[in-house]
């Protein structure tokens, strides 16, 4: 049967080619250009660039996770920064233990604990010496928190803006909690000065490249996973819940479990992204949980195009690329630019960069045919889909 869905076309032969090229670049070209090509060559990629892009790969993974719940499930989270940070903290604890006695106080204990005059590790640090235990926590802590929070929120049928506000409050409350020294997460300084991972020095080009490749693999893996989910019948039910929840219920589906599954999985993906992010940037502190961070994540998705998977990845790269440029060039204006960008995208590009590209291509294709008088211009399937949805939701006419 002819596939008219947006995703069907996004991931046709062209999509898979793009995916292959991305994999080649991440796993072969970048490592070669960074580690093998000598410095000074035009093809050399600096360590700085590797870290910068590695960071963006993690952001892109959060964007994909957000797209699953927001783009396909219609659940707008303004608190994904919390899950991201929790994953980061879980791995950060292990990295703190890896410092060993090389800290300022030359004691086998993180500096902030010595500073607070703690004699032994608090209970939640018991397993922190084990990578496997902390890696499990990277998945379990965000997953469990999201599951419990989501269960009560979805069971109480909290939706739309109310849900978003609660997620925002949740991350804010967590930030205040993590700021406190007694919580045992290093207070406002958080964790930093990492020295090793698996006993290997963390700042060498090889370790950096390994983390970069791991982030790339995690991103591509989450793209495949989310793509598989949203094209399955489960995904169809999820988007149906987004568009007409009561109809889904009267079809005999219980939306609670469908939302909860996507929500929990999304939090886990964000947590993994956070865990890959922290060793690359070398710091995690409570500011990662600030509401503004979570809102920025939503902007990546909106700019790229929600409900398209590839769009949020592009959005994360575009917005963060612009941020890197702006914070060097005109640092005090970055937040204005970000705000303006969000307003403009919401007003003029409701489907983000991907939607815009499809629309332009659709228009170009429609032109030769429009020459036949009276023949209605064939709308591109993307704009058709957008028109269908906005007509159904009573939103303004699509351009």
């Amino acid at each position, binding site marked *: 049967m002819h596939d008219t869905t947006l995703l069907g076309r996004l991931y046709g032969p062209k999509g898979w080619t793009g995916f292959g090229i991305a994999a080649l670049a991440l796993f072969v070209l970048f490592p070669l250009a960074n580690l093998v090509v000598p410095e000074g060559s035009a093809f050399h990629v600096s360590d700085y660039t590797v870290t910068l892009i590695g960071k963006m790969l993690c952001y892109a993974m959060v964007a994909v996770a957000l797209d699953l719940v927001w783009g396909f499930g219609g659940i707008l989270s303004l608190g994904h920064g919390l899950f991201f940070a929790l994953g980061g903290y879980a791995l950060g604890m292990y990295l703190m233990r890896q410092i060993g006695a090389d800290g300022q106080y030359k004691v086998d204990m993180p500096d902030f604990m010595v500073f607070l005059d703690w004699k032994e590790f608090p209970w939640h640090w018991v397993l922190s010496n084990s990578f496997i235990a902390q890696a499990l926590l990277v998945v379990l802590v965000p997953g469990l928190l999201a599951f419990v929070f989501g269960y009560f929120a979805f069971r109480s049928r909290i939706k739309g803006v109310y849900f978003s506000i609660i997620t925002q409050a949740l991350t804010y409350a967590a930030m205040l909690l993590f700021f406190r020294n007694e919580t045992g997460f290093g207070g406002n300084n958080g964790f930093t000065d990492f020295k090793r991972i698996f006993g290997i020095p963390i700042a060498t080009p090889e370790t950096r490249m390994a983390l970069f490749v791991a982030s790339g693999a995690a991103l591509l893996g989450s793209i495949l996973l989310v793509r598989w989910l949203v094209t399955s*019948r489960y995904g169809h*039910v999820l988007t149906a819940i987004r568009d007409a929840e*009561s109809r889904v219920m009267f*079809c005999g589906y*219980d939306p609670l479990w469908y939302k909860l599954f996507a929500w929990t999985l999304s939090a886990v993906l964000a947590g993994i992204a956070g865990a890959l992010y922290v060793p690359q940037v070398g710091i995690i502190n409570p500011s990662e949980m600030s509401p503004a961070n979570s809102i920025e994540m939503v902007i990546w998705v909106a700019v790229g195009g929600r409900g398209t998977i590839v769009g949020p990845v592009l959005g994360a790269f575009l917005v963060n690329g612009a941020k890197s440029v702006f914070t060097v060039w005109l640092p005090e204006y970055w937040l204005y630019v970000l705000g303006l960008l969000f307003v403009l995208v919401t007003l003029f590009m409701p489907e983000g960069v991907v939607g815009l590209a499809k629309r332009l291509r659709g228009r170009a294709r429609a032109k030769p045919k429009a020459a036949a008088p009276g023949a209605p211009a064939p709308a591109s399937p993307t704009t058709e889909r957008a028109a269908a949805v906005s007509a*159904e939701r009573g939103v303004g006419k699509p351009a």
Partner: protein
Amino acid sequence: MTPSVATSRTGDLADSGPAALGHVVTGELDLSHRIILYLDDISVSFDGFKALNKLSLSIDAGELRCVIGPNGAGKTTMMDVVTGKTRPDSGKAFFGQTLDLTRMSESGIANAGIGRKFQKPTIFADHTVFENLELAMKGDRRVRRTLFAKLAGDERDRIDDMLRMIRLQDRADRLAGLLSHGEKQWLEIAVLLMQQPKLLLLDEPVAGMTDDETERTAELFLELAGKHTLVVVEHDMAFIAKIARKVTVLDEGHVIAEGPLDEVQQDPKVIEVYLGR
């Protein structure tokens, strides 16, 4: 409704075990007394406004029942109670002999065999016509099943049959949001039928349809009656006249008349309700 029905029900409650006591809310539909839907003394109020006021109604299996009444008579609220969207303040609502609707979830009620068509057509706008029917098809509704669900050959055939019945076979790949209003109404009815419901609640099914579409809808309903039980709420009296066998008139939250259409139309209470305001 007749008092004898009520007594026979109470008898059943006493001797049919835990299911009747409401501890078990899932299970098979029991139609041993021919009654498929039984509402007794249902009251619902919103902020002091009595939407339903001691409403009692019973519907036999296979019946095609029309429910009419002026605006605000409680027709939609009645459907909300039956489908679990609204919990009654008091009264009983049973599906068959054993399923207590006041204790079941919306999805549980739907899976037990009650389908509902809303006043405004509610379909999945961002899915194709085919996908709409696929989602509605009777099947396992658990998350882990839907992750790996594949469309079997006979399921595809059933969808194709349904597409032919609603005359949308050449639009199977169209997004449902782009259908005309009448087509959406038909698609929604088809979505209901895909679930193979025992009882269909249809809220203004021909609103916004062309005369031709209305005619075809009437034919369809008459064909469905017997195989399914239909409860139709409608304002279009011409349509009611075409399909009506037994008509129930609601006003201010309770039943004021019941019987064949021409009899009901002669009823002074009904005339007063419709002409008196």
